[in-house]
């Protein structure tokens, strides 16, 4: 290597090492606001809306929303981009300035960084009068996102199968629930419970047991302050139920090759009795029933089998929050879309979901909930960011499928060890990481 080549190589290597310094977004637009437009007729521009609803973009439903939107805002052109693997793709795009005008706030962004990536939608004080879930995206008194729907975790089940098994009332304890599943196994041909192990993400819904067990709005804060798998803690109760279901042979025979898409019509037809998912799933299962030519009314929804002061509890939480890109040149138009989509699009009703508007009534599907007097708990998210950083640091992954997959493996004997040791190990990792997350 002569001197010139050495110099060239050194320059290249040096330039490459400097590159990481260029990551991230310039701070120039930090702290910008996306104000609601005063006159709908004057807002103009083309905005790109990022979404995870690939299905709605493909079947033209999103186009219909856009057409409806244009009746109020004629000069705004709305384009959609559906990302199939949202979290992974958006993370890479957010290293540039070009990540759409309206996007869903990905989990990876630290809450404190919201002002660097998103334009604010207004103050918390002002927005929380009208909307639910505002504290989930509040940084420094300002709100950075709004979820268009509220979701509630729960068991999607086939009413007909449960009735055939002789269970008509919702089980009120995990033991009663297991007894119900056993009756289904004994008296019907259905698989009592389906884990959807292979699709991975359905297992993460089990984390949303948190708060339902003890009817505690501060459940998230307790994750940040204690051991989530201590005796009697919500996650321990939920994970133990999942373990027992699998261990007692009440789940599908071979979880490793389970199939999410097939599980929908199979549940509708009564081949599968129960799955722990959320209200968002109801409409998909009803559609699957219609396509399979069976009665969509067989799809039922029930809360976690636990009662506090004689009442079932269910947590209401936000879905993805929509936010405005801080670099967007059309912030007013983007804001207009978010407001319209949240208030007037009817997206929540189309999905049989809970409206983010405090004034809106509960959806029809949750009638049985009202009749049974289920208490709705809105979780306080002030410690949400801390929980996420403990989760990342400990590599436990309560919002990730891995540890639940291990739990299922443990329960069906594909992994050695006892449940107590397993949950104890998680608790140890969690509390160890909690000590190091001071911020």
């Amino acid at each position, binding site marked *: 290597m002569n001197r010139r080549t050495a110099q060239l190589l050194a320059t*290249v290597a040096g330039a*490459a090492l400097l*590159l990481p310094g260029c990551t*991230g977004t310039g701070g120039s637009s930090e702290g910008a606001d996306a104000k609601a437009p005063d006159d709908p007729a004057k807002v103009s521009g083309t905005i790109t809306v990022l979404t995870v609803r690939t299905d709605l973009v493909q079947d033209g439903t999103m186009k219909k929303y856009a057409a409806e939107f244009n009746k109020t805002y004629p000069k705004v052109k709305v384009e959609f981009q559906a990302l199939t693997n949202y979290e992974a793709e958006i993370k890479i795009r957010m290293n540039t300035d070009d990540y759409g005008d309206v996007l869903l706030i*990905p989990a990876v962004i630290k809450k404190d960084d919201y002002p660097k990536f998103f334009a604010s939608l207004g103050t918390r004080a002002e927005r929380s009068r009208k909307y639910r879930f505002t504290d989930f995206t509040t940084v420094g008194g300002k709100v950075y996102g709004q979820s268009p729907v509220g979701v509630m975790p729960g068991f999607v089940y086939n009413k007909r199968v449960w009735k055939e098994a002789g269970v008509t009332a919702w089980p009120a304890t995990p033991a009663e629930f297991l007894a119900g599943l056993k009756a289904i196994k004994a008296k019907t041909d259905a698989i009592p419970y389906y884990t959807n192990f292979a699709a991975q993400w359905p297992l993460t819904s089990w984390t949303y047991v948190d708060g339902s067990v003890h009817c505690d709005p501060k459940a998230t804060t307790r994750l940040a302050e204690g051991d989530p798998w201590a005796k009697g803690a919500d996650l321990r109760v939920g994970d133990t139920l999942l373990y027992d279901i699998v261990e007692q042979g009440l789940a599908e025979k*071979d979880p*490793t090759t389970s199939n999410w898409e097939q599980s929908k019509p199979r549940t509708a037809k009564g081949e599968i009795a129960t799955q722990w998912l959320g209200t968002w799933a109801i409409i998909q299962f009803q559609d699957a029933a219609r396509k399979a030519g069976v009665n969509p009314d067989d799809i039922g929804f029930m809360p976690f089998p636990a009662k506090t002061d004689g009442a079932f509890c269910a947590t209401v939480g936000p879905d993805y929050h929509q936010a405005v890109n801080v670099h967007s040149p059309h912030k007013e138009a983007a804001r207009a879309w978010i407001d319209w989509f949240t208030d007037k699009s009817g997206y929540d009703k189309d999905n049989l979901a809970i409206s983010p508007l405090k004034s809106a009534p509960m959806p029809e599907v949750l009638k049985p909930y009202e009749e049974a007097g289920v208490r709705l708990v809105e979780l306080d998210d002030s410690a949400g960011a801390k929980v996420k950083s403990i989760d990342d640091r400990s590599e436990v992954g309560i919002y990730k499928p891995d540890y639940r997959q291990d739990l299922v493996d443990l329960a069906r004997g594909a992994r050695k060890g006892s449940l107590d040791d397993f949950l104890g190990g998680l608790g140890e990792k969690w509390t160890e990481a909690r000590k190091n997350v001071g911020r």
Partner: protein
Amino acid sequence: MAHAHPRTPGQEAGNAAVRERAVQHASRRAGPEPAPRRTRAWRLLTPWLFLLAPLALLITFTYAPIANMVAYSFTDWDGVSPELHYTGAENYAEIFTREDLFQVFWVSGYYLAASVIQIVAALYFATILSFSVRFRNFFKGVLFFPSLVNGVAIGFVFLYFFQDGGTLDTVLGLFGHHTDHAWLGTPVSANVSLAGVSVWRYLGMNFVLFLGAIQSVPAELYEAAELDGAARWHQFRHIILPGIRPVLTLTVILSVSGSLSAFEIPYIMTGGATGTETFVIQTVKLAFQFNKTGLASAAAVVLLLIILLVTWVQRRLVPDDRVDLV
């Protein structure tokens, strides 16, 4: 990365052009005479001009990302935040002090064992099909076909294949063997199944390499050997095997590094569940699930070093001799 960069055609053409021009000069002016300064400068520059495009590509897509990765490995970057802190060798210290991060290398054992089977099978088929066999080209096609299919598609197809009551169970049932086996159900069975898929997938590639090498052995050698009364086994043992030794060594090196960095098939089929997590899956999870891009970069650097080390040891054990059959 050990990136053997082939000499580009552009480079050769450039040299030829320069040489030709030099010859023309010489013939016109009768007698060597130093070319003017500008021509000389151009002559020095020309090969570099031809190299510009490949070098730019190589640097942009190979060396810059690697340099970047190495730089990230000394930080605590989470992959998206504008803030990142230099943490020194902390990530490396973490990797080497956490034994759970290295346990996943046991899984590579399954892929190593599978690649032995793969190489032997590929060698067997390549040898047989290099002699005149009926439907020779058809069988070549059949063996090579899996290499053409997209890896993601293969993953999904084999998920159905291993399903409870899926293709494999049905086929076994045809032969009167009614199993009730969850193929991806236990760590051993799952890893064996996945390694089997990887053999299916990469056999064709090895086969083609071997076939090419075998066919470059001069045909007279076989004739001479046959006249001397050598059977097929002797021909294989004394002509083919030494004849293709460089390719064989290369394949072994590729198989070892491939086994250490197995990713695609287990990631799509099981996502690393039930004890099928490989080192690369673990790295991807660190980077994209737990947002520890810094730590994941360090893990990637460590894997790179391990592979380089293994390759170096292999080259020391089996030096790349010149093939000298005649």
